[in-house]
């Protein structure tokens, strides 16, 4: 076939189109696959590297946090709110009726059994990512006594649930566990 020079046009299309079409298809497909094979590692390299993935847990000592106060620690580069709630704050959070909530969730689902005084939250407003105020007793805490986002006025209750403002969902709870009564491990 390679020697059949008969009847060809100026664009080099030989007389046997089917075999050539097949080769063209094969060459085109393998080139596309090669391109994807080159792009894959490059794109993949932008995902978190091994060292970033490995830094996935942090321990917090709860002893120094007085009731009514909260602290902020950094976990995976994110602010984590750890708040020691007063009995009144706990009660307010537990008594909220689902009908009053924009994103209904019980307080029990957001705390650890036996450790209801402790609220651990990812301190990132679910609206557009600002950090709400309210960890210090002197901060503006909003109408529900929880947290108040200064950017566009979202208000969270003492369980970190959204009550008012543009934020669509409650403040998220990170994965954590109590190592002892006065120590938690986040992540």
């Amino acid at each position, binding site marked *: *076939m*390679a*020697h*059949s*020079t008969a009847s*060809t046009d*100026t*664009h*080099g*299309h*030989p007389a*046997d189109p089917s*075999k*050539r079409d097949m*080769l*063209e298809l*094969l*060459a085109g497909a*393998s*080139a596309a696959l*090669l391109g994807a*094979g*080159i792009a894959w*590692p*490059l794109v*993949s*390299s*932008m*995902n978190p*590297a*091994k*060292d*970033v993935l*490995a*830094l*996935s*847990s942090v321990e917090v000592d709860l002893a*120094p946090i007085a009731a009514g106060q909260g602290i902020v620690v950094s976990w995976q580069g994110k602010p984590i709110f750890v708040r020691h709630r007063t009995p009144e704050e706990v009660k307010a959070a537990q008594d909220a009726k689902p009908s009053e909530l924009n994103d209904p969730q019980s307080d029990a689902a957001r705390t650890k059994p036996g450790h209801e005084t402790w609220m651990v939250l990812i301190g990132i407003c679910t609206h557009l990512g600002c950090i709400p105020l309210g960890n210090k007793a002197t901060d503006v805490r909003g109408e529900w006594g929880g947290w108040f986002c200064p950017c566009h006025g979202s208000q969270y209750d003492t369980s970190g649930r959204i009550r008012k403002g543009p934020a669509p969902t409650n403040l998220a709870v990170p994965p954590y566990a109590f190592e002892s009564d006065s120590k938690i491990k986040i992540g």
Partner: protein
Amino acid sequence: MAGLHKSEFANPVINWVDSRLPIFTMMQKEYGVFPTPKNFNYFWNFGALAMVTLVLMIVTGIFLAMNYQPNTELAFGSVQHIMRDVNFGWLIRYVHQNGASMFFMVTYIHIFRGLYYGSYKAPRELLWMLGVIILLLMMATAFMGYVLPWGQMSYWGATVITNLFSAFPVVGPKIVTLLWGGFSVDNPTLNRFFALHYLMPFVLVGVVFLHVAALHITGSNNPLGIDVKSPQDTVPFHPFYTIKDSVGMCVFLMIWAGFVCFAPNLLGDANNFIPANPLQTPADIVPEWYFLPYYGILRSVPNKLLGVCMMFASILLLLALPWLDTSKVRSARFRPIFRILVFVWCATFVGLGICGAHKPEGIWVILSRLFAFYYFAHLLVVLPILGKLERPLPLPESISNPVVRAALARSVAVAAIVAALLGVQSLSPAHAEEEIVLPAQKWSFAGVFGTVDLASAQRGFQIYSEVCANCHSMKYLHYRDLAGIGVEPGQIKAIAAAVTVPQGTNDEGEAKEGPGTPADQFRSPFANDKQARARNNGALPPDLSLMVNAREDGANHVYAILTGYADAPSTMKMQDGMNYNKYFPGHQIAMPQPLRDGQVTYADGTPNTLDQEARDVVTFLSWAANPEQTERKQLGIRVILYLGFMACVTYALKRKIWAAVH
């Protein structure tokens, strides 16, 4: 000019765009129907290959820059971070690192093609000169890129090359200070080199665009060196040359992948695995292979200023080549004397490279002077005179009616160039001292199919922790990395927790320590280098993370040192605190014999002989230096098979497409 471009594309969207911005028409004209001489040989692939390389270098470079830190404190470590932690970081880095060599290989062959077939002659003078500028830009870019990893060769290469400018009277030292941004190569230098290394490729793209634009005005030269006379002499660029270039590209990528996956550091220097040390120059300082010929010229001249000028002149003179060569005949095929001399000239260039790789002593000085003399004589004397004296062979009437077939010459030329290029590389710089021959051992990880023996590596880790770790750090490794030699996650946690590591500061601002986690670095035995020196008789125990890469023939080297302790021969005067070692350069080593029979007890019952212990620790260190090695080789096999398949498909298609023309 107002009004829309008259576009003739059937697709309405393409037509709409094209009548407003005729890029499709331009592509069609320049790369679709562009009439191209039909007698190109595979030498004409290399321009396209250089273009592919440039694109791949820019793309991989951008992704490397996302993880690299241009700071003297962080640069070396950030490269290790790329190699060890970033997903596919090792692949991207090795493609980029070897890509520099690939780029020069391809470009040198491309230049040789131009020299042999007279592509620099009228009307392509400007095209050629733009090419010389591209070469200069490439060199500057490659040099600055080599500085970035901030290893010993990076640092000392930067020092030596920037000091070249100090040769110029009056302004010289000022220029050097300006380049450094200080009084030695330091952080400001690294910073600006990074900025410029990122910028230059885009300048390169600009000049390449002009180079290609000029090519599309004059049209390509061809192996016969005669002008295109009629449409019968040409074929449209697409599909004839797009497919031929694709075949070449597949083969080229196979070679590149071969280097990346099986010998990623073959073209590099072991010294660059040692972090830059401004207080100590490595014993052999040699530039990368692609700079060796110029280095050879530099060292052939005993005068500093003259040497530097000759080195620059060796490239700048090429700008004048179109006028230095007075012959009207382009292709060497029809110039019997030139044809021999062009090979002689290229051989002197390669010869200079070989001289550049050796210490400038004895025969090498004489040879490098001879070669340098002919290099310049060829340009300045031989070419102008030869053009007048030589009687060219009769030229063929046209490309479609050639009288001469020169397949033999073609293959000889290819073979000569390839052999020459390989030859330079195989000549590693010779050591002036007595040669120490390292006994070659059998390693599980050696060869294309070799994989790291995990059990042995784990035993090696035991030896490292029980013995080596008392003095040597391995700061580029983390406990989590031990998963790579098959240590279970639970065990890794336990190993890490058994170590006390610094954990920042407590709430009172005092330094805090606590049990390690898998995320921690291997703990260093000493707080800092000064303490390490003070406790080891002034000798700094080197970090072992990269030890196997940081020595020539590293695995055999480390094994030989570990097993090479003996009593000093009576003729040898040993210095205080030094130990005799058969394989250590100079035979006096500060490290006391670390391993002996029965030094450790293996849990798996492996006999704890010195040989076994040394073997295990070397296996561990080899893995530690190249944790990606098994994955890399396995990927390499698959990539090369795939590209080989693609090469066959494109070659079959090329035969089909060309069947009509041949």
